[in-house]
């Protein structure tokens, strides 16, 4: 049982401000992801919660009590690191049992046996208890490392990029394995990653961190469909979202976007129009996810925009097609067997109803036409 709150936390290392006025509320039993690029302050944030780093400003509370001056070992948190750090000469059983044999948490052997088996069952490693770490797969080693954290029944798990060092293929599998395990953890967990797929897949909520500041805190649904800033929009999705600057053109009662030189076909969606009107904007930034741009090699609709193939990168099940239009590169998704030789004329159709609109000056979210969302529910 633990909820954790940070209020206006600032942490400095000499001249460098690692965290700048960070406020977060983490609910009991929540799986909370801290996402950001290298150097964003993710690990510092984790260290502040663990008590390894002491903030210059702000307060950290656990279950409503201020813990700023409480030592790390008194916070009842368990850290799980990227490297498994198992004792190579000890069996899986002894590795998991080790925290319960330490002077601090010492338990009777009968109790230890019970606990190790309970944890091993949750992690599905109960059949490996007599093995040595060297006899395990990477995935199994990671589960043992988690088991060692779990056995102490901590109130909070802190996980620092536990899947980062795996290659792409293993990561796919390990992320799924991890998600399966997560359902049984039932403990407040704070999980740091720079991989947006991990954040979307695992997080109940995600805090996006950039240069020591919070860009957005929200559910995967919020983050993907209503990104608070262009930074968030660009960080989630691969290939990355296409962001275009568009002027607002008023013709009679209708408003159009001037997109890549075409101001006749992209009607400003109704819901977006009212926001633009309220903010009195003349120019907006429009974000199109690659899957929301369709293409054709024939000019079969007036609302299609002429472009040329810049590059075509097949990836097996699909391909990334980069098109050149109006001095900009536009990325979209196409089948891998498409005949898209460079410089071939191509016509693009932008789905304005799925577009995400940003303020051109602040690069902050203003509106989105589609009611879509809810895909992440659950």
């Amino acid at each position: 049982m633990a909820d954790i709150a940070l209020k206006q936390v600032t942490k400095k290392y000499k001249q460098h401000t690692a965290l700048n006025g960070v406020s977060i509320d983490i609910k009991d039993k929540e799986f909370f992801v801290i996402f950001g690029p290298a150097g964003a302050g993710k690990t510092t944030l984790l260290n502040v919660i663990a008590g390894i780093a002491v903030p210059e400003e702000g307060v950290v509370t656990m279950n409503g009590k201020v813990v700023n001056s409480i030592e790390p070992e008194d916070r009842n948190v368990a850290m799980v690191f990227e490297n498994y750090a198992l004792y190579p000469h000890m069996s899986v059983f002894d590795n998991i049992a080790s925290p319960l044999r330490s002077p601090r948490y010492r338990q009777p052997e009968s109790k230890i046996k019970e606990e190790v088996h309970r944890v091993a069952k949750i992690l599905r490693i109960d059949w490996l208890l007599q093995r040595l770490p060297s006899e395990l797969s990477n995935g199994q080693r990671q589960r043992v490392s988690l088991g060692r954290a779990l056995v102490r029944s901590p109130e909070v798990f802190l996980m620092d990029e536990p899947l980062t060092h795996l290659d792409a293929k293993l990561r796919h599998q390990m992320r799924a394995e991890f998600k399966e395990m997560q359902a049984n953890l039932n403990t407040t967990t704070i999980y740091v990653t720079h991989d947006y797929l991990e954040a979307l897949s695992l997080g109940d909520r995600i805090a996006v961190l950039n240069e020591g500041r919070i860009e957005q805190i929200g559910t995967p649904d919020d983050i993907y469909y209503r990104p608070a800033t262009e930074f968030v929009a660009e960080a989630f999705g691969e290939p990355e979202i296409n962001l275009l600057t568009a002027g607002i053109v008023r013709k009679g009662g209708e408003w159009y976007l001037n997109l890549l030189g075409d101001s006749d076909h992209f009607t400003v969606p109704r819901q977006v129009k009212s926001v633009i009107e309220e903010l009195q904007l003349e120019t907006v930034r429009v974000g199109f996810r690659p899957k929301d741009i369709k293409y054709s090699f024939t000019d079969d609709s007036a609302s299609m925009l002429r472009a040329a193939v810049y590059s075509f990168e097949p990836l097996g099940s699909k391909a990334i097609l980069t098109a050149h239009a109006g001095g900009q590169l536009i990325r979209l998704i196409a089948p891998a067997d498409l005949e898209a030789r460079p410089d071939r004329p191509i016509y693009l159709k932008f789905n304005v109803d799925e577009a995400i609109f940003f303020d051109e000056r602040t690069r902050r979210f203003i509106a989105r036409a589609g009611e879509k969302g809810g895909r992440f529910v659950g």
Partner: protein
Amino acid sequence: MAELVIRNLNKTYTKQKESIHAVKSLNLTAKDGEFIAFLGPSGCGKSTTLRMIAGLETITSGEIEIGGTVVNRLHPSKRNVGLAFENYALYPPLTVYENIAFNLRARNMPEPEIKREVDKIAELLQITPLLQMKPSALSGGQKQRVNIARAIVRKPAVLLLDEPLSHLDGKMRQSMRTELKRLHTEIRSTSIIVTHDQSEAMALADRIAIINEGVLQQYGTPLEVYNHPANEFVAGFIGEPPMNLFTVTAFTEKTGRKMFRIDGSPIEFAVPDAYRDRVIDGKPYRFGIRPGDIHIVAGSEPHTLRTRVTIFENLGEECRIHIRINDALLSLVTGENVFFQPGDPICLLFREDRIHLFDSQNGNRI
């Protein structure tokens, strides 16, 4: 511009008194203007091969021919190859301009011509604003551009790239990959890229040479190696998320229908028509299906597999569903707007024309 031919190439060396056969009887041809990827896990011999082409490594036996000339005995500088390696190795005291011009100076090219060439390459690689800067002021991506500019400014017959993108972070790597592919369509020189990243090889290359333990496993276009992998190694190495691979055993039902059962699990499904005559009862096979080739269907269709969802992931662009089978997961990917919870029943259909079957002994495609 030249064809590159590798004939019966071998490399052995001694490490800690142990003889290592790093490259084993390699044969392949890169046509004039082709973009070829050497792809494999670390230590497979791909970089050693590249270094033999460049002349940085001696050849134990076999021949390398560039543009009709056997280059085995030629000094690296006489082979007309351009090199861009993973670690940038730009000359730190020289400006970007001087770094690119360096090799042209060595050839006594007149100064106005050098300027023309450097400016042209700089524009092609979009580094014109960087020309007067020192390497220390550049980002990783910029350094790599300069590195590639320096390799191609000499107009080499063959351009050799050793993991040029692996030091770059995710976003930069992707945009550099796009630029590299575009660059090749503009310069059209025969190019070899060494990489351990299958998506990089697929995205860039006209043909991919997949190498494992010094042995060429398959040489083909990205579509060929993806759709018709020659063996289980290639099948597992190409594609992300990776192909599902299971050991299955064939048997015949009372009704006469040929079936596969996944070993150690109750999951059974019909043997596809195309394999029916080649599959022997009681014999194990390695069965492969890509995550995108499994469809979610209503239960009534034949050939379906009824099971329950173990894990559901929504990743924005796509959803992934995983089913636990013993200690492994069967994964599928869909672009459709679906939602499942763990434990929900689900019916799956393996696309018959996309099933891969491999010999359980030698791993070869059946």
